[in-house]
């Protein structure tokens, strides 16, 4: 949620601190700050607070508590007007579980035009585009107090006996000719291509064959768009059930500011405050008169009181907060609290739908007083030894294999074939859960054989193992699999084991796995490498390392590894002195590009020249 400091400032009599200080206040008391650029903040409002805080008012409320500076006004604590009942509008809600409240209003005689500068600037300050004064008013009030709103051009609806009839209903099966598609829908702004499947909750014109005016809680349709010619409006301030809105938004891939709010289930009480503010603002910026209002709200909601004691707060947090401090936290949050002895009974205001159990109140105390006040405490010792036997058994197996020259790899659990298949694989080539580690281990071995020259001592062949879960139809278990049987265990030893069956607990009991210190990660190149061998005769007694260093000095930076891979002696014979053959393997690789033969040849020529100049005979 993008918020602007200037907008928040409307809620405070004293000047707010700069963006960075605001960001810190949010970070440690309320929300994660995703981005802060000057006076624009992008806040990550999580689901528990999103019911009340996806608005500048909600964010200002949090800021007031975090900074301990009271708000100068709170639109949600100001009274609601008594609207006249509309004689021109009727609303029919099909399922009150999907539409918890619907307030409709008729406004006549507006002049649609551009918005005043302050309104344009306010919207633009949070990255929104100004459209016209009426639409801007609905957006402003939503961003200000969190209630999604919509304005329909009344003239686009059919009146029967001078009455407009709005319907809130689901798309019926018989209206969808092809079940796979749905009813075509063109959203405001002319975006078309949406197909509304059966069951989509929509706003309709009941007097015009249930013509679809909008997708409930998500987006209005172009059919009743407010244009410069519009004079009469039907305003909607409703509350649509969160799951239904979320599912529809996902199905249509149409995510809007309205859907983001409804899916977090704001209180239906909020709709009335939204209507109050939007009617006032429309009249202010576009003129017109409110004809009347219809409010369909069959099951009003009310928050229940929640109690917590000072002792319980401190027992859960490990704090030593006094009752006074706890009372301060509730006061900073403007929570109406009854205190008797050390018990606090909070009756949350209607918008705080997140305060249901004592632990919810404890979180409020913790975050407002600050988690930095919790001392790091040590857990008391437990009787007995903690049970790590199974872990140690498995690690003991690994230690044995490493001793035998095996290298551990880790591979992916998804496979081309298997007994259990995913309904929604990410990689459609690997839709199943592996039934064995074999397939991956084969691939890893082929790869390892190619890379062995880079990482293993010369002449060493890679031997791999993996420990991982497999999912055959007999049931999930942990498998150990090796690319060959360890020599020391005899060649008839199987190359796999079911570690869920083997008694790893007993095997690990009392075993202390080997510990290693690892140096920091050493990046390796992902480009191909080139291998060159050089064999030469050197006088007997010549240190191979001396020769190796000569080569290294000439081979250049692209030579990442040189190793001696063969050495033998030729005894003196027929007056020729004894000599030694050395063979070195050079590996060339770059971090920036694929090397060419020329790169390697050039380096080798330099090395040959150097070796010859030292009097060695290249074989």
């Amino acid at each position, binding site marked *: 949620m993008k918020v602007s400091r200037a907008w928040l400032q409307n809620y405070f009599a004293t000047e707010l601190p700069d963006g960075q200080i605001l960001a810190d206040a949010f970070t440690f008391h309320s*929300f*994660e700050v995703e981005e802060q650029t000057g006076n624009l903040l992008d806040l990550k409002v999580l689901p528990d*607070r999103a019911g009340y805080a996806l608005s500048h008012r909600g964010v200002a409320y949090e800021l007031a508590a975090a900074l301990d500076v009271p708000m100068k006004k709170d639109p949600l604590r100001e009274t609601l007007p008594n609207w006249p009942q509309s004689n021109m509008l009727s609303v029919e809600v099909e399922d009150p579980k999907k539409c918890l409240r619907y307030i409709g209003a008729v406004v006549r005689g507006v002049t649609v035009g551009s918005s005043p500068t302050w309104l344009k600037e306010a919207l633009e300050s949070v990255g929104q585009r100004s459209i016209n004064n009426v639409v801007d008013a609905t957006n402003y009030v939503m961003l200000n107090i969190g209630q999604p709103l919509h304005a329909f051009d009344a003239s686009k609806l059919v009146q029967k006996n001078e009455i407009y009839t709005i319907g809130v209903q689901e798309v019926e099966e018989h209206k969808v000719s092809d079940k796979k598609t749905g009813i075509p829908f063109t959203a405001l702004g002319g975006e078309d291509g949406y197909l509304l499947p059966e069951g989509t909750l929509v706003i309709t014109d009941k007097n015009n064959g249930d013509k679809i005016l909008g997708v409930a809680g998500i987006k209005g349709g172009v059919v009743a768009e407010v244009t410069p010619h519009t004079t009469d409006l039907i305003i909607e301030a409703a509350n649509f059930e969160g*799951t239904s809105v979320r599912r529809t938004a996902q199905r249509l891939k149409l995510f809007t500011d309205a859907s983001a709010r409804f899916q977090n289930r704001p209180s239906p009480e909020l709709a009335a405050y939204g209507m109050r503010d939007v009617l006032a603002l429309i009249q202010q910026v576009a003129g017109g008169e409110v004809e009347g209002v219809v409010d369909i709200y069959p099951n009003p909601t009310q928050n229940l009181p929640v109690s917590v004691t000072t002792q319980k707060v401190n*027992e*859960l*947090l*490990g704090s030593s907060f006094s009752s006074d401090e706890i009372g301060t936290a509730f006061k900073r949050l403007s929570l109406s609290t009854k205190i008797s002895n050390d018990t606090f009974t909070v009756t949350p205001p209607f918008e705080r739908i997140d305060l249901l159990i004592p632990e919810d109140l404890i*979180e409020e105390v913790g*975050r407002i007083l600050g*988690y*930095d006040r*919790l*001392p*790091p*405490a*040590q*857990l008391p*010792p437990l009787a007995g030894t*903690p049970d790590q036997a*199974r*872990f140690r058994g498995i*690690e003991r197996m690994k230690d044995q294999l*490493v*001793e*035998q*020259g*095996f*290298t*551990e790899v*880790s591979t992916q*659990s998804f496979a081309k074939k298997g007994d259990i298949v*995913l*309904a929604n*694989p*990410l990689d459609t080539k690997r839709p199943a*859960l592996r039934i064995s580690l074999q397939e*991956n281990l084969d691939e*890893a071995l082929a*790869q390892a054989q190619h*890379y062995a020259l*880079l*990482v293993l001592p010369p002449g060493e062949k890679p*031997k*791999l193992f993996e420990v991982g879960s497999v999912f055959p139809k007999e049931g*999930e278990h942990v498998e150990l699999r090796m690319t060959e049987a360890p020599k020391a265990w005899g060649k008839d030893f199987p190359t796999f084991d079911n570690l869920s069956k083997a008694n790893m607990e007993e095997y690990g009991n009392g075993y202390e*796995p*080997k*510990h*290693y*210190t*690892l*140096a*920091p*990660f050493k*990046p390796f190149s992902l480009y191909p490498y080139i291998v060159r061998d050089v064999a030469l005769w050197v006088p007997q007694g010549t240190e191979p390392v001396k020769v*190796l260093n000569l080569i290294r000095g000439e081979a250049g930076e692209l030579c990442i590894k040189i*190793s*001696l891979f063969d*050495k033998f002696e030729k005894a003196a014979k027929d007056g020729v002195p004894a000599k030694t053959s050395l063979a070195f393997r050079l590996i060339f690789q770059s971090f920036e590009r694929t090397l060419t033969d020329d790169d390697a040849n050039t380096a080798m020529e330099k090395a040959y020249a150097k070796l010859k100049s030292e009097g060695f005979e290249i074989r």
Partner: protein
Amino acid sequence: MESKNTPAVDGQPHATPKGHLHPMSVAMRDIAAIFGNQGFGIAYGPELEDEFHNFDALRVAGDHPARDMQDTFWTQEKPPRVPRTHCTSVTVRELERMAKEGLTELRMINPGKVFRNEATDATHEAQFYQLDGFAVGPVGTVTLAHLKGVWTRFYQEYIGPNAKIRFRPSYFPFTEPSVEVDLWFEAPGKEGRWLEMFGAGMLHPGVLENAGLDPKKVAGFAWGGGLERLIMVKYGVPDVRFFHNGDIRFVYAFDEKQI
């Protein structure tokens, strides 16, 4: 006469014919030891979980966004199961065991593989490991302050003596209060900074109840976070995709010394 000798000189330090452990195993041994000293055992559970242990018991209700197809893999089975999306499912199973065996205190770490249906990049993988865990005891004996103590000690032993942590408010359906835990990390030769490491909180009373425990009698904290992330921070690994692609170059990218 010619005689062959075993080559004795290598340009690289890996002259040993021993194999290599995956860095994750090396790390888990250190982690297990540090938590072991604070009374934590190690618990395991199935990677392919039922809905109850992965979601319902943790108060992730049937219509919660986390259960959607775009976040979670589902099997074609009836009823469907999920490659677990977190190891908190193991916590649920351990809490159930506490209830069954009548235990009033238990501390466990649950390392294991988890699955998320999301596009991969240098910091996201569809398969990764989590280091989950919990401590539960009689009410008042295991608090949010203890979570701070346990993890401060862990990081000071695992990362370095200057390590410290801080809590920020957060939200998870299965903890209340919920926090994010940041680590103060000073990479060699660089300025220290705060890194977001994992989520945690006090187990929600509803979760304890779902497992058959009485929240009036016991309470505790739980946490969960990426294991690769911890290793990436400690050893400077730039890309999470190195961990589980079976590439031995990654396994050999850390010079090792046995202690």
